Each structure stands twice: as structure tokens, then as C-alpha cells.
């Protein structure tokens, strides 16, 4: 580690009605990976947006390499060598890699036209530096998510950035791609770049970061050296109390088979998949990204057609051709992409919650809004969804509360089989624990849950059994006494 790259002292930021940052301190040394950790709404993003010039600062000082700076715009920030890689990828899909890297600052030749040769050559140098094996003339649209993330990082480096902020960079990466990203980060460390790393994934923070700063409710809580801390300490710093029992799960006896999937196949997605789900159990589905887990669930829920195979509910063969067939068989599916495929972000909590149960409020053909409001309020109380009112637009809620709204929508259909696809992705620790306790309660009430998850600790601690998928197939179904990260990864990578 080297000299101080960045120092933010006593940063204050107020929004109408919200005191977002209360005298936050933060510093970053060159060649360091410094994590910012906190529940959603803790103020991490606000702090980074001030650093990136998106928000102005109310009070406080920023020093970069010892010099006091004023950051009033994104351009200013870039001028001081600050780059932010946002959670959502902001590349233009139908331009090449080179054009994306140099977007807005294309090298020109003497006659004022874009000097394509230089542009492609320079971009290629960067790609080769990182050993990506890509051509700079490839369209961004043809890249995988991980590759796009790499291009974002290269773009940041091409600005000669000294400070790179990464906001949840691994949220859509597979295990292998994460390794690749971490190698890149280690390379950048050697070059003296300082990185601010925002993530909820504890095991990643433990692996890649040097120091961790925890924030809560807009306040600075503390900074710890990663090697000298542990997950429990971090969690208690984040939530302000000891979470004695993070995973809430009472294991009981599971009952008869409620759902049986027999030799299901869909070309290019899933291959001869069979499993049974028992009453009152959580069946975990582990596997790497692209193993076919979500594809399988979409077939079961009628979103995608399958070529061969049968589905049985309570021993009876059923025909599921669309989601309504599945819903009529008391199957519900909570998607992994709640913003894209789950919620109507501009609509209210009530709208999102009741969209599947409008029939219950129908009087003749009119929706009885009074009754509807009460039902929505009941779910808000029951799942402790934090929202000012039923009429709040769902897009304004935190990730955890959005997820609870989506789960409520499906609980309202009174499912017997609940498929949860990455139920705690992008959800903060407190809400995570609440979602686990909701799952635990549902199991006791006799609901059966299929939980697709890429977080191994979650799979191991919550499931009765785990089905490990690889390459469209179920490679192995493990019982509780066989669980371990190692065995699951063994089967997830194609082992026998």
C-alpha cells in the first residue's frame, strides 16, 4: 500500500426530507481495494455519487493526492482521475468495443474525421493488456455480461483513472468470471490504482479487499482491516446489533410429493431433468450461471415451452402451457430479475401487490379499491414492507422491500409450490434475514419452496435438499448430510 490517494472528510449531504450523509469520512490509498459496506440506503451510493460529480457536496472536503479539490461535474471527476463503474452496464450495444471505449473523445485525424485506425489499435492494446482474447472491432452486443464488465473497466483505465469505483460488479457474473475480475483487480493494484468496491457478498469482500468501511443510516460506523475481521463483526456493524440467528430455519419432517418433474427437456436449455418436491421442504437449486436453473423454472411455470417430459402436481399429470395454467395449479414463480421481469416500477405498491388477485376484489366487473387497499395493507404489515403508503411507487423502495412486494404478490395467490429465483439478490442483510424467516414460516404452513440461488451459504443453510445443475442437467441431488461448498462446486462444475 502506498500514499493517500483520496480523502473525504466530514461529508454532509441533505435531500428534501432526508439527511443522506452525516459527516462521513473515507479514505483510500493507492494500490488498495477498499470496500464500502452497508445496507441499502446506508448512503454508499450517495457518497460515491458525490465523488463522481453526480451530486454536489453540502459540507465537507475532498482531497485527491493531498490537494483539496472541488468536484462539480462528472467531467471534473474524470479530470481528477475518478471513474465509476455503475451496477448497470452503460455501453452502446451496436457499437464496437473500440468505439465504446472512445465514445465522446474519439481520436481525430488531420482532416477532422475520426481516426479509426488509431482508435482500434489503441483499444486493441488495452484488450491485449488484459489478455481478453477479443478484437476491438467486436460489437458490444455480442459480448457476455462479464466481458462487458471488463470493457467498462478498460474504459475507466483508458481515462488514466487513479480511483475506480465498482458498484456491485459481480452481481451478474458467474464464479469463473468473478475469478477473472479479481485477477484484473489484482493487476490494477500492482499498478497503484485505488479501488472502491461496493458489494453485499461477504465472501468476495473477505477475498479481494484490504480494508472495509461500514456505513449505516448515512453515518460512518468504522473502518476495519479485512484480515483482522470476520463476517459476524461486519454484519453487526452494518445492522447495529448482533444478528444471532441470521439463517432462520426449523427443519421438520417433509411430507408427500407435491410436485414431480419427469424427464423434462427443452432444446438448448435443459436436458432430461427429473426431480420431486415434497410438501413443506425447501429444495435448493445450485449451479453456475448458465447451468439451466432459471430455464427449468420457466418451463415449469409455463413461461417457456418444453419439448418432452411431464409435470405432476399432487400425483396428477398437469398440462402447463402458460403461467396461468401454473397459477391454477397453485405454482408461483418469483423471478430473479425483479426490476426487469417482476415489478411495475412506476406503479404503486398496491398495484404491484394485487395484480394477480384482482378477481377477489371484483364486484360485478369493478375492482373494489377499498377492499383491495386493505389486503395490500395486510401484506405490508405481515411482511413488514417499509413504505410510506400503499400508493408509493414501487421503484422508490429499497431492493429488499421491492423483493418483499414481489413475494407478497405471489403469496397472495396462495401457492402450494413457490419457486424463488435468487430470492435475496441485491437485498441488504436485514431484509435477507427477514426473507429467510418468511420462507421458514411458509414451510411450516405446508408450502413447498424451490429456491434457485447462487449464494452457497444460503443454499446450504436454508435447504432440505440441494439439486446441483450443470449444463442443463441435474448432476446430483444432495441430502443435508452431504452439503458442503466443496461438494456442491464439484458437481456444479460437471464432476460426477
Amino acid at each position, binding site marked *: 500500500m502506498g500514499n493517500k490517494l483520496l480523502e473525504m472528510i466530514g461529508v454532509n449531504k441533505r435531500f428534501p426530507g432526508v439527511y443522506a450523509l452525516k459527516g462521513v469520512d473515507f479514505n483510500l490509498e493507492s494500490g488498495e481495494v477498499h470496500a464500502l459496506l452497508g445496507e441499502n440506503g446506508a448512503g454508499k451510493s450517495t457518497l460515491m455519487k458525490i465523488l463522481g460529480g453526480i451530486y454536489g457536496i453540502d459540507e465537507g472536503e475532498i482531497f485527491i493526492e493531498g490537494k483539496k479539490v472541488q468536484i462539480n461535474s462528472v467531467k471534473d471527476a474524470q479530470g481528477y482521475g475518478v471513474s465509476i463503474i455503475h451496477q448497470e452496464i452503460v455501453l452502446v450495444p451496436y457499437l464496437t468495443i473500440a468505439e465504446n471505449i472512445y465514445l465522446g473523445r474519439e481520436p481525430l485525424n488531420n482532416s477532422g474525421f475520426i481516426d479509426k485506425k488509431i482508435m482500434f489499435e489503441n483499444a486493441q492494446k488495452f484488450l491485449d493488456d488484459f489478455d481478453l482474447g477479443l478484437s476491438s472491432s467486436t460489437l458490444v452486443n455480442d459480448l457476455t455480461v462479464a466481458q462487458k464488465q471488463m470493457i467498462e473497466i478498460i474504459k475507466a483505465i483508458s481515462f488514466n483513472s487513479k480511483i475506480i469505483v465498482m458498484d456491485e460488479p459481480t452481481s451478474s457474473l458467474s464464479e469463473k468470471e468473478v475469478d477473472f475480475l479479481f485477477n484484473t483487480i489484482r493487476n490494477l493494484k500492482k499498478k497503484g490504482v485505488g479501488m472502491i468496491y461496493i458489494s453485499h457478498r461477504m465472501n468476495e469482500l473477505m477475498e479481494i479487499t484490504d480494508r472495509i468501511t461500514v456505513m449505516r443510516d448515512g453515518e460512518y460506523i468504522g473502518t476495519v482491516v479485512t484480515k483482522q475481521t470476520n463476517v459476524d463483526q461486519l454484519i453487526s456493524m452494518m445492522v447495529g446489533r448482533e444478528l444471532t440467528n441470521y439463517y432462520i430455519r426449523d427443519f421438520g419432517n417433509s411430507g408427500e410429493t407435491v410436485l414431480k418433474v419427469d424427464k423434462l427437456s427443452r432444446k438448448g436449455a435443459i436436458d432430461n431433468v427429473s426431480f420431486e418436491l415434497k410438501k413443506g421442504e425447501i429444495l435448493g437449486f445450485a449451479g453456475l450461471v448458465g447451468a439451466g436453473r432459471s430455464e427449468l423454472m420457466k418451463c415449469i411455470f409455463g413461461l417457456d415451452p418444453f419439448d418432452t417430459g411431464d409435470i405432476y402436481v399432487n400425483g396428477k399429470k398437469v398440462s402447463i402451457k402458460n403461467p396461468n395454467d401454473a397459477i391454477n395449479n397453485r405454482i408461483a414463480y418469483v423471478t430473479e430479475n425483479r426490476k426487469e421481469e417482476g415489478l411495475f416500477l412506476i406503479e404503486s405498491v398496491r398495484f404491484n401487490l394485487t395484480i394477480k388477485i384482482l378477481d377477489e376484489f371484483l364486484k360485478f366487473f369493478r375492482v373494489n379499491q*377499498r377492499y383491495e387497499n386493505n389486503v395490500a395493507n395486510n401484506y405490508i404489515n405481515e411482511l413488514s414492507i417499509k413504505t410510506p403508503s400503499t400508493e408509493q411507487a414501487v421503484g422508490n423502495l429499497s431492493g429488499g422491500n421491492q423483493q418483499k412486494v414481489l413475494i407478497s404478490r405471489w403469496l397472495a395467490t396462495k401457492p402450494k409450490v413457490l419457486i424463488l429465483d435468487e430470492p435475496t439478490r441485491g437485498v441488504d442483510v436485514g431484509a435477507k434475514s427477514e426473507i429467510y424467516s418468511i420462507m421458514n414460516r411458509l414451510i411450516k404452513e405446508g408450502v413447498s419452496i424451490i429456491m434457485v440461488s447462487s449464494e452457497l451459504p444460503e443454499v446450504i443453510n436454508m435447504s432440505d435438499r440441494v439439486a446441483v445443475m450443470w449444463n442443463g442437467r441435474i448432476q446430483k441431488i444432495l441430502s443435508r448430510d452431504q452439503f458442503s461448498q466443496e461438494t456442491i462446486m464439484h458437481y456444479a462444475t460437471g464432476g460426477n
Partner: protein
Amino acid sequence: MAQQLSSKKNNFGLGVSLRNYIRENAGILIGLVLLCIIITIVNPNFLSSNNLMNVLRQTSTNLYLAVAMTMIIILGGIDLSVGSVMAVTGVVTTMSIATWGFPVWIAIIIGILVGLLFGAINGYISATTIIPPFIVTLATMNIARGAAYVMTDGQPVRVMSDSFNFIGSGYLFGFLPMPVLYLIIFLIICYIIMNKTKLGRYMYAVGGNPEAARFAGINIKKVKFFAYTFSGFMAAVAGIVLASRMFSGQPTAGNGAELDAIAAVVLGGTSMSGGIGKIGGTVIGALIIGVLSNGLNLMGVSSFWQYIVKGIVILIAVYADVIKRRKAV
């Protein structure tokens, strides 16, 4: 649980709705009032009951189209064919009477069926293929307009029938123009659909996030099919009423009417990207357009200049609305 449900009461009274309505549409309402004041100052005749009924009658044709257009735009679509469908339904209806000698009520049913057919075609293709609705309805716009010309050889079809003329030119109780009566009925129906029924909910859902609607098991095709078919129906109503008022079916009728309808929808605060909008806003939007052209007529501004003024007003109004909304967020 049932007790808990009934104990919590919310106020959904008329007063609250009205207050919300005014608050939601404050911007364009102020615009509309200002417009009326300016016109009245220049020409006090504007406020005469005769003239006001005239404005309503002229606005009603646009609103027939615009209420259905509101649904379609909320759905994330567009219907460019309505102006041409107006023409073809007007022509078919008047020809049914004048050329083929059908009774008036059968002729009207035939006209409405033609409108429904065009709407259903738009709806079917838009719902089941990946052709964008802009293209689908651009095509049917041409087909319908062409059909109207072919059938009439480009000539107006005159109708001499008192009962047919009454449809567009008659009055209820001697003061309420028939077109305004239909308008009130359709506005109530559309308001109920959009705000009180499952179908309306689903329109907001499909327009707000089509993927999420699919994952929620909403039958997107059915919702789209309904909206376009309804739009065809409303275009037929507009076409028949207009033909009745002009005592003839004109193959040139409704030229550019789709654009006035879209303008009314957009002025009313509906988002062209779908998911956001209200029938109530569209009513004010259409009134602004109607009052503006009536006022310009009263001031003696030539119709050529009126286009230019209308264009500028639309730009300013929508821009002001966008700014207001951004501040609200």
C-alpha cells in the same frame, strides 16, 4: 381477518377524486383557463352557450379517437389508422343507406362492424407478430384510406335521411348535441375500464413493463387485441357521427385526425413510452386543441396559420408538462 379488513376505511369520496384530478392536471388546466380568458377578452362571444356547445361538439369527434388512443398509448402502442378508418366507416355507412338502400340502423351496424374489423386486424397483427404497431397501423391507415377512395371513386356520398342526420346534428332536450351525449357515455365507460376494471389495470401493467406482465401471467395478446379493436370501434363512431353532420360520407374525412388525437393524449400527460396516463388528462388535452381552434376562428385567424399556432402550443405545453413532472420526481 375479515373484521380487520372492514374496520380500516379509506376515503374514496367524490371530493377527494376531484381534488386529485385538479392537482394531477394543474398545469394543463391552468393553460386551458388562460386560453379561455384570452379568447374571451378578444372576443366575448366565445362564452355564449351556443359557441361553447359548438366547441364541445367539435371536440367530441377528436375525443372519440383520443380516449381509445389513450388506452393504446398507455399500452405502449400507437394507432395511426383511426383517421382513415373514420373515412371508410363514414363512406360504408352512407353508401349502405344511399346506394344499397339499407335502413339507417342496419347501415350504422355495418359501419361499426367495418371499424371493428380494422381495429381487430390492427390488434391481431400487433399482438401476435413482432411488427411494431406504428408500422401495422401505418399500413392499415393506407389500406382504409384507399378503400374509401376506391368505393366512392373519390366523390362524396350524399345522404338524404332525417333520422341519419339526427345522429350527428340532433339535440337531446333541445340543448345537448347528440355527439356530446355519446361522448359523455363513452367517457364514463372508458373511465371505468381504465380505473375500475382488471382490463384497465392490465393495460397499465403491459405498458409499464411488458416482461413483468408476461411473468405475472397476464394475457398480453388479449389486452392488446381489445385496445386496438376498441380503437377501431371508436373510429367508426367518429366516422359515422361526422358523416351524419356533413350529410355525406367523404373519402377525405378524418385526414390527419389521428395526429390530433395523439396530440390530445400527449397534452393530457400520457407518456409515449407507455404505462403512464389518464383519460381525464386527455379530455383536457382535447379541450385545449378544440378551444384553441375555435378561438382562432373567432379571431379570424386563417386556417393555414392555425396549424402553425397549434404546433407551437403543443410543443410548449408538452415541454412545460415534462419539466413539471421532472421537478415532482
